[in-house]
């Protein structure tokens, strides 16, 4: 099992690896190895490789030259032309630093961001990165060059979570700055004003961008399993609260579910893919979601 590349999809395993670009590669390789006979294999304009014909393959792609030489049917595979432009918007606000089991939301989000970037670059798509909290902390223009990954992962690694999340101005601004239609991937815990968020997302949609929202949450945030008397220290300049968690649990979960429901509904309304991730979830989910979105986009 040790050499099973799929193990790198498990956040627990990933947490032991420090270098983000290595992580990204391991994740994607693990993911690809699971995509045996997957419909997501890309087709490029440029020739990539030959593959033996199996009945059912499109006969248009049979390389007749090879047939002439070897008397065997080979299918010609092409590298698809890069025409998808993606921006990954990663939330690096203070709230992303929360963790209950060692993997912070930001760490998880970083893995998602890096592995998506790697996957995109592998598929000749161009990818850009935006790190934000209450303002844009870093903006890397999109590029399809494989070396772009290094830049992206390095930028993510050197960023410390701080500041409040604010989406309204930033997203509006970004929507204006990213002129070409593309795929906007937002990785955040979305601890912002929901109405502001939805307005901002609508702005992206208005600019004809595809939007995927990866809602990264910690398991504890969803279940609130605390029992002992606890002093809750608020991140993002929230005041602290001294409370008996059992007495608060019901109301908290109610509030939290209402928030999630509202975000989900808003996303559905604007045809935005909403994916909830918990830091203990396998990264496969995020990558599959992206590929599914990309399929829809290229067909």
């Amino acid at each position, binding site marked *: 099992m040790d050499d099973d590349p799929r193990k790198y999809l498990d956040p627990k395993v990933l947490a032991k690896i420090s270098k983000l670009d290595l992580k990204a590669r391991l994740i994607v390789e693990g993911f690809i190895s699971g995509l045996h006979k997957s419909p997501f294999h890309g087709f490029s304009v440029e020739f990539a490789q030959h593959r033996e014909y199996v009945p059912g393959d499109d006969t248009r792609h049979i390389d007749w030259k090879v047939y002439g030489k070897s008397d065997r049917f080979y299918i010609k595979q092409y590298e698809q032309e890069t025409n998808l432009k993606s921006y990954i918007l990663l939330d690096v606000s203070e*709230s992303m630093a*929360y963790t209950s089991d060692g993997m912070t939301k930001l760490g998880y989000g970083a893995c998602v961001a890096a592995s998506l970037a790697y996957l995109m670059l592998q598929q000749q798509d161009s990818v850009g990165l935006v790190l934000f909290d209450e303002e844009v902390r870093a903006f890397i223009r999109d590029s399809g060059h494989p070396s772009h990954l290094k830049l992206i992962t390095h930028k993510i690694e050197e960023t410390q979570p701080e500041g409040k999340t604010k989406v309204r101005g930033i997203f509006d601004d970004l929507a204006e700055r990213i002129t070409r239609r593309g795929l906007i991937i937002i990785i955040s815990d979305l601890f912002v004003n929901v109405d502001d968020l939805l307005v901002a997302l609508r702005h992206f949609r208005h600019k004809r961008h595809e939007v995927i929202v990866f809602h990264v949450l910690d398991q504890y945030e969803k279940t609130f399993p605390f029992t002992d008397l*606890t002093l809750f220290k608020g991140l*993002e300049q929230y005041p602290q*609260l*001294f409370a008996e968690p*059992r007495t608060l649990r019901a*109301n908290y979960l109610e509030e939290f579910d209402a928030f999630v429901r509202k975000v989900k509904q808003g996303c559905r309304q604007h045809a935005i893919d909403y994916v909830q991730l918990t830091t203990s979830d396998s990264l496969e989910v995020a990558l599959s979601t992206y590929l599914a979105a990309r399929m829809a986009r290229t067909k």
Partner: protein
Amino acid sequence: MIQFATPLMLAGAALASAPIIIHLLNKRRFRVVTWAAMEFLLASSRRNFRRVRLQEIILLVLRTLVLLLVAAAMARPFLAGAGRVLGLSQRLAVIVIDNSFSMGYTVGSDRPHDRATQLAEKILDSLNKGDSVCLIAVSERARPVIREASVDLDAVRAEIRRLPLSQGSTNLPAALAMAADMLRSSKLAQKELYLVTDNQRTAWQIRGGENSELNGILRDICSVADVILADVAFDTRENVAVTSLEPLDRIIGKGKADTAFAARVANFGETDQENIEASFFVDGFRQGSTSVSVKAGAAADVSFSYTFHDAVAHSLSVKLKADRLAADDERFLAVDVLESAKVLLVEGKPAQDLYESATGYLQTALSPKADAAFQRSTVYEPVVLQPAELGREPLDKYEFVVLADVDRIDANIAASLEAYVRAGGSVVIFPGDAVDQDNYNTVLFQEGNGLLPAKFAGIRGDPDRSTFTSLAVSPENTHALLKEFRQTKSAFLNLPQVFRYAALEPPQRDDTTVICSFEQGAPALVEKAFGRGRVLQFAFTANDAWTDLPRRPGYLLLMQEVASYVARDRQKGKNLLVGDTVLRDVGPEALVSKITLATPGGSVNLAPTPEANRARLKFENTGAAGVYELKMERDGTTLQDVFTVNVDPAESDLHHIGPEQLRRVFPDFRFRYLTAASGLETSLKDTLAKSDLWKQLLLAALVLMCIESILAQRFGR
């Protein structure tokens, strides 16, 4: 009003602060979580704040209350005025105070009686307005001081303060039976019996380790009421008392030299008493004194003698130097001194020569007139009659009747003899050659139901007087009739020769006793108690026909003793115990004009109650020990009578009975026991708390704990 039996335990109430302290400690020991989703938490907290605060306060109050209740329960709280607070009705307190004379035992200036009345007042203090009280004084006649439950506590208090120390003994069964009636008849829900006494062992009248009747009464009481036994006795029990004063002879004759009296001095204490001075008084004048030493727990007799010179009623007393319990240090005796005492001798064998006749020796023995020296020492006046004259003679005036060798007794005479004995007279029967034994057996023996103590069964012995038998009186005999024949003096009876004797067959009956026998075991003298009198039956003659006893000195002694033994007990009705009723026939009412009775407490005038053709005098108020002198005018002459009232010697025994013993003897007696040693008033305060609340408190704590768990569960969900 709530009071606490063990107020120290209230310190446990500090425990109640535990939940608060735990709460505060918890506030300092908490987890710190850096939390991202604070917005929702704050919103939740804002929504929750009021409810949670309320719930927390409720839980805190519950937990604090539980501990407070437990601490309070351990302090054994009680409601002094329980009834009202608990919504019950008022309570009834039956206070039984021992005021027998033993309560007058004085140590310093303190007496159990004083302690008892003070305690009774404390009991009253513990009552509330509306509670009711019955008061019973325990003395010889248990007296309900307040029979109908009184709510006027001040009046009760006045009664308690007035309650005198009596000279009576403790009659607990009567008092408790009375208390049981009072408790049973009361409809109040809460009833208490306070028994305030010096708790003498004798007061409980335990015989053979039990008193089942009293146990029954106590069971009745305990089934309806709480019993508090307050023991007010001192630890010391030293007491010396005169327990009896009696003449040695039943008949006291005028002029008889040195009539002897014996007083018994008993030491009920635990240390030997040396040289107690005992003084002897006649008619109130001191005649002399002697000193006596009595070992602890033992008794000693002191004798006095006196020669009476007039044939009237006299009073005597023996007085010891007063000790801590003075009431029993003097004892009184009233005696009738007689001019003479008539004795009827029925002569069955008249003869010219006095000593040939059946009663000749007897006449001489009872009244030895021939010798001037003896004349003064005897009081008997023999009257000799023929059997034929017996039917016409009223027997009442005789001290006793002797039938000596009378051949036959007819049924009429037998009936009049029976009536005479039943009324207190006595008959002495001697056999002889003339006696028709079958007639005696039929008319007098009546198969054991008649006067004759034993059946005649022929004559044994040797008519030729060549062989003889003797009486066999043991030197250690204990019979009262033979008291002069103890030790070496038994020879007076054992040496004389008996040649012939009547075979006596006494039935096995409780009322029949063989006083002495012959050497070979045949009964020689048999006694039967009959009515208020007694019958003596000899197996040998009164003269020397069958025995040589009449010619020996033992005969004189024996006959004097027989006379003294069978003579009417003249002291019996004259010497009473405290509380007894005096009854006197005073003859035809019309002739009695004025009756005055001088009591130890003062003089009272009395009126006789008419009864058939004569008047009867009844006097019940004999509460004081001492001499009572009765004077009445009848037929123009003044008659005088004296009687005495003494304390009950059983009350002098201050031996105490402890609570464990009481519980053993009376298994159904459940009581709370207070002693002077434990501080009567404080322990009363502790015990008064009839309505213990600890059970209720613990129950409440338990309920609260359940509620707390349920709420905590629910709030936490």
